[in-house]
C-alpha cells in the first residue's frame, strides 16, 4: 500500500511538473486544464436546442433550463431595400432581415454552435463579431462568408450579460452603418427576474446622400459617415418603426425590461424615456445595477438593460437625449401605457406633450396619398389640404400654433394674416428661404427668425401652403409643386453692396 502511494505521489509530482512545463511552454495547456472557468458549467447536456430568434422589438422567451446545453443558432444575412422613412428607401444589410438583427437568447455556460448563412442573392461577403464571445475577433475571422455560403463556429457563453453583435467585414463602418448589428442575451443560470414585458430597441446612425426625409432611394454616403454627420439617427432601423400603430405597449403597474443596444457606427446614445425614471439600469449589461436613473449613456457597440414600472397611463417617448437627433433625425419611439388615470401621481397638461404627441403618432397616410396623386396627376385640392394639415402639425404648429394664431409678439399669426394673403408669391419663398427681420402682420410688428425648412420637398411645401390658405378664414387658393420648384431654383438676389 505504502509503496503504491509513494509511486502514485511521484507520478503526480512528475505530472504536475510536466504540466507546469507545458503551461510555460504553451498556453494551449490551459485548454486541457481541469479547473473550470467562471461561467463554464461543463460540457453541454441533453439534445441540441435550436435557438428561438425574434425580430425587434420582440425578445425570445426566458430560458428556464437548469443545465448547460448545445444551442444551435441559424442566422441569415439578407441585403434588402426597406423604407428608412416615409417615401425614403435604403439598401439595408441585415442579420435575419431586420434592423437591428434577430435577438439571440442563450444561457450562461451554453455551448453555442453558430451558423452564419449569406443569402445567395447578396452582393457582399459578411461575417459576425459577437461581443459575448471570448476569442479573437469575437468569431469574425471564423465566420467570413461569401454570398451563397455558410460558416460555422462554436463558442461557450462564459459571461452573462447583454451583448452587441455586428458585422466586421471591410469596410467595417459601412457594414454597420447599413444596419448589421443586433443583441445577444446571455442569461445567468438562475434567469433574470420576472417582468411583464421585455422589449428590444437598438439605436443606429445612418448616412444617406440625400437630406433628411428626401424622398426616393437614398444611397449610402461614405463622406458623411467618415465625418460622423448622420442624416438619420434611428431606433430599430426606420423612422416610425416604434410609433403610431407600432408603438410598444404596456398597462399601468407593469414591470418593463428594455434591452437597449447601440449599433453606432459612430454616435453614443443618451438614452432617455420622457416621463419615466428607470428603477434599475444594468450599464453595459454588467452584474451591478444603478437605481433611479434619468438618462443612461450607451456607447456605440454597447447595450444596457433598463427596468421600470409603469405607473401613469399615457404615451412615453423614448429618445436619444442628444435631442436634435430625436426631433430632426428620427431618434424617437413611443411606449403607450394604458390604464386608469392616477391623478394623485400626475395630473394636468404638459405643454411639450402636445408637440410630442403630434410627432409621436403621425398619420402620414394622407401625405403618401397626396404624393401618389401628384405623381399620377390626380391631385385634388382636398388631397393637398389633408396632407398639408398633417405636415403643418408636425413642422409648423410648434411656432405658429395648431390654430394658426401664432404667439403674440413672438410668432406671427397665419390665420387671417394680411401679410400672407397680400402676397402669395412671397409666401412660397418663406418656408424655402426662411424669414428674418422686421415684418408687420395685422398691424403688429414681429422680429424673429424662421429658419429655412429645407427638410421639406416641393410637394410638401405646396401642400402646407395650400392648407394654410384654406384654413382659418384665409382667402383660399392653391399652390402647386411646380411653383415651389421654380422659387427654389431662383437664386436669392445678393444683398446690395454696402460700400
Amino acid at each position: 500500500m505504502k509503496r503504491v502511494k509513494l509511486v502514485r505521489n511521484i507520478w503526480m509530482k512528475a505530472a504536475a511538473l510536466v504540466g507546469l512545463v507545458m503551461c510555460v511552454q504553451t498556453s494551449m495547456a490551459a485548454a486541457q486544464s481541469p479547473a473550470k472557468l467562471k461561467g463554464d458549467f461543463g460540457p453541454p447536456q441533453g439534445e441540441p436546442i435550436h435557438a428561438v430568434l425574434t425580430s425587434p422589438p420582440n425578445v425570445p422567451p426566458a430560458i428556464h433550463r437548469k443545465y448547460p446545453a448545445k444551442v444551435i443558432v441559424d442566422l441569415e444575412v439578407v441585403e434588402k431595400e426597406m423604407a428608412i422613412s416615409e417615401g425614403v428607401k435604403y439598401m439595408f444589410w441585415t442579420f435575419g432581415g431586420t434592423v437591428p438583427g434577430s435577438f439571440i437568447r442563450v444561457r450562461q455556460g451554453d455551448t453555442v454552435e453558430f451558423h452564419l448563412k449569406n443569402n445567395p442573392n447578396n452582393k457582399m461577403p459578411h461575417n459576425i463579431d459577437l461581443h459575448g464571445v471570448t476569442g479573437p475577433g469575437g468569431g469574425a475571422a471564423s465566420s467570413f462568408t461569401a454570398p451563397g455560403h455558410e460558416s460555422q463556429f462554436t463558442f461557450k457563453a462564459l459571461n452573462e450579460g447583454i451583448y452587441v453583435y455586428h458585422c466586421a467585414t471591410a469596410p467595417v463602418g459601412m457594414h454597420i452603418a447599413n444596419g448589421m448589428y443586433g443583441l445577444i442575451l446571455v442569461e445567468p443560470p438562475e434567469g433574470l427576474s420576472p417582468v411583464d414585458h421585455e422589449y428590444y430597441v437598438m439605436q443606429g446612425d445612418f448616412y444617406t446622400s440625400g437630406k433628411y426625409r428626401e424622398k426616393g432611394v437614398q444611397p449610402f454616403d461614405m463622406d458623411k459617415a467618415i465625418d460622423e454627420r448622420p442624416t438619420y439617427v434611428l431606433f430599430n432601423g426606420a423612422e416610425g418603426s416604434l410609433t403610431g400603430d407600432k408603438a410598444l405597449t404596456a398597462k399601468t403597474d407593469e414591470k418593463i425590461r428594455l434591452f437597449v443596444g447601440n449599433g453606432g457606427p459612430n454616435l453614443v446614445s443618451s438614452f432617455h424615456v420622457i416621463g419615466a425614471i428607470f428603477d434599475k439600469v444594468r450599464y453595459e449589461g454588467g452584474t451591478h445595477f444603478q437605481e433611479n436613473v434619468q438618462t443612461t449613456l450607451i456607447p456605440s457597440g454597447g447595450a444596457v438593460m433598463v427596468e421600470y414600472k409603469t405607473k401613469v397611463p399615457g404615451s412615453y417617448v423614448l429618445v436619444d437625449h442628444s435631442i436634435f437627433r430625436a426631433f430632426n433625425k428620427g431618434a424617437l419611439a413611443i411606449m403607450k401605457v394604458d390604464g386608469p388615470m392616477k391623478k394623485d401621481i400626475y395630473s394636468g397638461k404638459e405643454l411639450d406633450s402636445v408637440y410630442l404627441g403630434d410627432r409621436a403618432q403621425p398619420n402620414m397616410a394622407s401625405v403618401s396619398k397626396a404624393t401618389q396623386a401628384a405623381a399620377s396627376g390626380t391631385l385634388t385640392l382636398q388631397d393637398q389640404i389633408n396632407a398639408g394639415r398633417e405636415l403643418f402639425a408636425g413642422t409648423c404648429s410648434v411656432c405658429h400654433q395648431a390654430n394658426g394664431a401664432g404667439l403674440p409678439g413672438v410668432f406671427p399669426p397665419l390665420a387671417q394674416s394680411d401679410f400672407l394673403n397680400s402676397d402669395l408669391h412671397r409666401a412660397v419663398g418663406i418656408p424655402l428661404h426662411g424669414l428674418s427681420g422686421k415684418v408687420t402682420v395685422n398691424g403688429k410688428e414681429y422680429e424673429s427668425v424662421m429658419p429655412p425648412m429645407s427638410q421639406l420637398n416641393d410637394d410638401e411645401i405646396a401642400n402646407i401652403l395650400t392648407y394654410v390658405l384654406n384654413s382659418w378664414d384665409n382667402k383660399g387658393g392653391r399652390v402647386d409643386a411646380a411653383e415651389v420648384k421654380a422659387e427654389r431654383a431662383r437664386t436669392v438676389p445678393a444683398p446690395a453692396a454696402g460700400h
Partner: protein
Amino acid sequence: MKPRCAISRWTWVLACCAGALAPIGNCAAAERAPAYIAIPSGSFASTLSNPSDNNSPVRVERFALRETPVTNGEFLSFVNAHPEWRRDRIPATFADASYLHHWASPSTPGPGQDDRPVISVSWFAAQAYCEAEQARLPTWYEWEYVAAASKTSPDARRDASWRAEILRWYGRTSEAPPATVGGTANFYGVKNMHGLVWEWVDDFNALLISADSRNQGDPDKLKFCGAGAISLQDRENYAVLMRVALLSSLQGADTTNNLGFRCARTLPDAK
C-alpha cells in the same frame, strides 16, 4: 487619344490553329474569337499597398484583356468541348454545389442567357476556360489597373461620379439575372469592368485582407503569404476595397450568383 488598339482577331486564330503545341488548344473557339484589347504598360497606385516596397506604385506590363466578361453562350461552347466541366460531371474539388445552377440543364443555359455574363463559376473552371482560349485570368493588379478607368480617363478613382456608379451596382441585390454584356467602353476600350458582375482574378487568394480586416498591425498576419498586401493604402477608396473583400472571402471551388470572369493574355513583347 484613346488607345483602342484591339489585337487583330486573326493573330489569335492563327496562334490557335498553328498551336498544336497548346495543350488544350481548341479551334472551335476561334470561330467566334473574342476581342482582346491591348493595354499599354504603366504604373499606378494600387488600392492595396505594398509596405515591403515602401508603398511605391505598381508597374503593370503591357498585356491584353478581354473586351467583355465571358458569357453563358461562350461558356457553353467550352463545356461542350470539355464535358468534364459540365455541372453534372465536375468533381466537388473544383466547384461547389451551386456551380452553373442557373442553367436550365447541364448543357443548356436556357432562354435569354447566351449574352449574359456567365456567373456561378469556380476559379478552377474560369482558369480552365481561359486556358482553352489560349489565355489566363488577369492578376488583381492588371484588373484593378484597367478598372480604374472611366470612359474618358485612365484613372478616374478620384471622380465622385465614377465611384457613385460603382456603388449603385453594389446597392442592388441580384434577384434578377445580370444584364447582357456590352455597352459603353472605358478609356482602354474594355467594357463592363463595373456594374455587371464580380470577376475572378488569378491571384484572388493572395489579396488577403484577412477574414477579420480589423487586425491591421497584428504580428500574426505575417503567417500568411499575402501579408504584404494586407493593409489598404487608401481607405476612402472603399468601392474597390469591397471588391477585394469579396474576392478574399472565396475559395477556388466557390461560386456565387454575382461572380463571373474574363481572361487576359500576356503579350509577346511584354518584358
